[in-house]
């Protein structure tokens, strides 16, 4: 029993989109689907202007809005706090997409190739990726980041954590007060995004500066 969580250090992140792309490769997500998205913002006025990237994962909230609104029971929360979607139960109403404050839910309406202008059959990689995707998710159902549980079970780090060039991402157990992420959150003032929605995210951010 753990409560898996992330710490993303905004001070370290410089906005290279590695997490976003590596996630695609690790999870074979199709066109338009990005579980580890990055968004940017600017604040202040010239010349005292600041700019920052906000890299995201699913927040695996302790009180998930998506779980609350899911009418079918497809959305579940496992014993480690990971919010999952059972694709056999999901009916694809997209209500979770509306309710999630973090944009963590995504649905493939219909699997599309990245090469719509090319002739002939899918290339070997796309064919492989599509097969992998269809085996696990397929079209029409809600999909989301699960902190790479398949990798974690093999003792690996989530793909985005392993690849992050500036080591801005740390994965661990929030329930363990001595875990690296718990220490980082305590020591460096970790905060959750938009706590006003009452979801209690398991992903914490460290301040920009």
């Amino acid at each position: 029993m753990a409560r898996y969580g992330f710490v993303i250090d905004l001070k370290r992140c410089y906005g290279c989109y590695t997490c976003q792309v590596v996630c695609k490769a690790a999870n074979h997500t199709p066109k338009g689907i990005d579980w580890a998205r990055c968004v940017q913002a600017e604040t202040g006025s010239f010349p005292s202007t600041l700019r920052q990237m906000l890299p995201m994962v699913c927040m695996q909230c302790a009180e998930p809005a998506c779980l609350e609104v899911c009418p079918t029971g497809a959305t579940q929360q496992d014993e480690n706090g990971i919010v999952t979607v059972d694709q056999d139960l999901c009916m694809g109403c997209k209500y979770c997409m509306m309710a999630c404050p973090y944009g963590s839910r995504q649905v493939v309406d219909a699997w599309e190739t990245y090469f719509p202008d090319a002739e002939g059959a899918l290339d070997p990689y796309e064919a492989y990726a599509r097969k992998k995707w269809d085996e696990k998710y397929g079209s029409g159902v809600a999909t989301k980041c699960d902190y790479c549980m398949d990798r974690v079970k093999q003792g690996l780090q989530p793909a985005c954590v392993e690849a992050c060039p500036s080591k801005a991402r740390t994965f661990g157990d929030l329930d363990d007060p001595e875990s690296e992420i718990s220490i980082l959150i305590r020591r460096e003032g970790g905060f959750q995004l938009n706590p006003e929605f009452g979801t209690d995210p398991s992903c914490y951010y460290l301040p920009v500066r």
Partner: protein
Amino acid sequence: MSPQGVKEDVWIPTSCGGCYAQCGILAHRVDGVLVDLTGNPETPAGSGRICGKGVAQLHTLYDRHRINYPVKRTNPEKGVHADPKWQRISWDEALDTIVSKFKNMKDRRGCYFQATTVQTSEIRFAIPAFMRSFGFKNYWVSGGGLWCGNGAHFMNGITHAAWSIIPDWTYNNYTLYFGCSKGHGAGHAALQSSQWVADARARGMKAVVFDPFLSTQASKAHEWVPIRVGTDAAAALGMLNVILNEIGQWDEEYLKLKTNAPYLIGPDEHYVRDRDTGKPLVWDAGAGRPKTFDDASIQDYALLGEFEAQGVKCQPSFALLREHVKKYSLERVEEITSVPASTLRRVAHEFVEHAQIGSSVKIDGQTLPLRPSAAIFFRGSQGHVNSGWNCLAIDLLNQVVGAADVPGGAMGHGPPVCHGHPDTGKPETIPYTCKDGLMIVKGWVYDHKPYPLREPKPPTRLDLQDMFPCSVYNAFTIMSPDWEKYLEDFKIDYRPEIMINFGSNSVMTMGNAEDVTENFLKKFGFVFSFNIYQNEFTEAVADIVLPDCSFLERYTPCVTFPSTFCHPTGMDHWVWQIRQPVVDPLFERRDFNEVMLELAKRLGIQEKYYAETNKLIPVRYGGEMSPEYALDPKGDYSWQDICDRVLKDRLGPDKGLEALKQTGLEKWPTKVEEMYWRWFVSVRIPIYFEFFKESGEKARKLCASFGRENIQDWSFYRPLAEWFPCPSHEETDPDFDLTAFSWRPSFHTQSSTQNNPWLDEISVNDPYVYLIQLNEDTGKAKGLKDGDDIWVENKLGRRIKGPVRLVQGMHPDQLGIAGCHGHWARGTPISRDKGQFFDDLVIVDEKHTDSLTQGTDACVRVKIYKA
């Protein structure tokens, strides 16, 4: 634990080719299909990670838009938007045609090799070996003058024996960035630098970024200093003035022993030389008389004061520099740069304070100066008329505080720096000195070393580059509508005939597409090209296109030496890393190196080709070649045979290709003498560039002898650093009220990555990359709303269109565009019409060229209006 039915599941160590950082990667192959790319934890080049651009290269291998078969052009009409009407042909037909074209040349010198800057390690052998064995000298990396570094590479070669400089983040506490993004995804040891700069930031390292817009690096910095493009030297010299004349602090010991600061300069601006030995003189303040710079008896080098030696009044060069920079009063500098004088003064103070002059640190038992301040620069600074001097002026900040190639300071990075300490048993590349005591690099990437300067001689090349003393790449001759006139005036007795292109897309990377195509490329009667995609270049002018292998389908004996940008600073490891195919080449794709070898054989020049290859190996990798592994001119080798011999020769008989294919690399620990070499190698570098003057004078006379004295502004050839304005700074037409510049997003590499679907997906959603950035207040004053389509037009009436992004993080009179987007080739539909093609606005002519390095000025005065 492989899933059921899987017959093969392997991880192949190789090297990424997504940019020039050459990180070590592992390719995951399942049942013959490449399914993932990850970092290779065994290598220091990337240290087990991979970036988004790297992972996205999965699609490069299988991209359905790739070229899979040789094709020939059936539409004889060439031009920027021409449809070549490709027709598939056999390899034999393609090579037969090429060979017959070569054999029917009027003059072999009329060949021209054009190559990409991205595949740096692939061009080490085949191109020069072929050029030398076939007999021509024309060579160009197409993005070189505009996207790569004329000033930066050249000037860092002179002062750091390196291709570029980056801060030593292990110890650095304060970095001034000028137009560069090192540590923020730039391909300069991209992954390690990213981590180290993040570590440094976390422990309190401060960065001050001089940039016209709130770039990625500025966004992470302690302070962003908005500055007008192309004015970096003025800012640097203003700060130097504060340091030398207000603060009055500098690293005496460093300047005395490691630079030509004490060299005495006469009224003729030249060294005062010893009558007997011809060596430059210095003033021994202890003895009260002049001595040659290398006299062991010198008690104390004078840096200031006026003296008389050899009967002339003279001063140490440092005293001249100190006096010279008084010209750059902060009031004047503020006017040029728009940076408030108070900011410049404060930053100069902070820079000196953080340099901790006099402090030291112990590393691996060696006590070394600790100078945790650095001033670094790259393309932003050097893409101007003042290319060379911008770079040197900024680097002078490092030199006066002694923060050069010592812990915490600005480190030479890229080839050849200094490695191969005798204790390591590896081929050595250690800088040495000229007779004046100044540093010469041991090996270098292109033909001529940065110093001593090339002797001005009548040109033999079609671009006249070999006539200029410090030109790295130049485009103003070949892109001119009067190219023919240049050739006539400079008595070039042959004309362009055949162009060989390797992977480059020069139509999009040299300047205005029409100019490149009409004035330059179409002058070649026959153009053949190795490419993985049909791009703007092939569609405009190629007659035959050969399907090249991507970096995931070919062998390269070494990608990390000479290290372009793969070895990080700090104590880690050197790594020798190979590239190997992760799958056999698909379809009829063939490796460029293999095909060039075959062409040499078909042309009957393979003996020379082998001989030239033998000569190139030591130049590239340092050290002499053992006769055992040298290629026998009578032999018959494949590209893999050559790779195998290179490896065995460099690494040992048990480290041939088969062995390296298993590990992908060979690594050994960095020695402190190699990484922080400055105080271990007895060389000096110039802070006073005496040699420019003489060289410029010779070049001027030479040009005058051809009746073209005014081809360049010879006043650039001077001994002391100066800021010269770009044409954009001198524009007086009030309608043209903005200066446009381009920038590079870290997730794209020049013009080569825009067709990658994953990178395109990022770019579409990025708030900057596919848009034109303009200051919000400026935009609103012009009645623009965020997202409005605007035209950006230069003085020649050329214009580009795109949606505007109004931001606060932009200098009010500047305009930013991410470079090399806006493709139009039929062969790359994903990238088509995405973003803007900035280079179309760039003006390439004598006036827009750095007279010193011949780099192209990449800033353009523009007006904008609603589309």
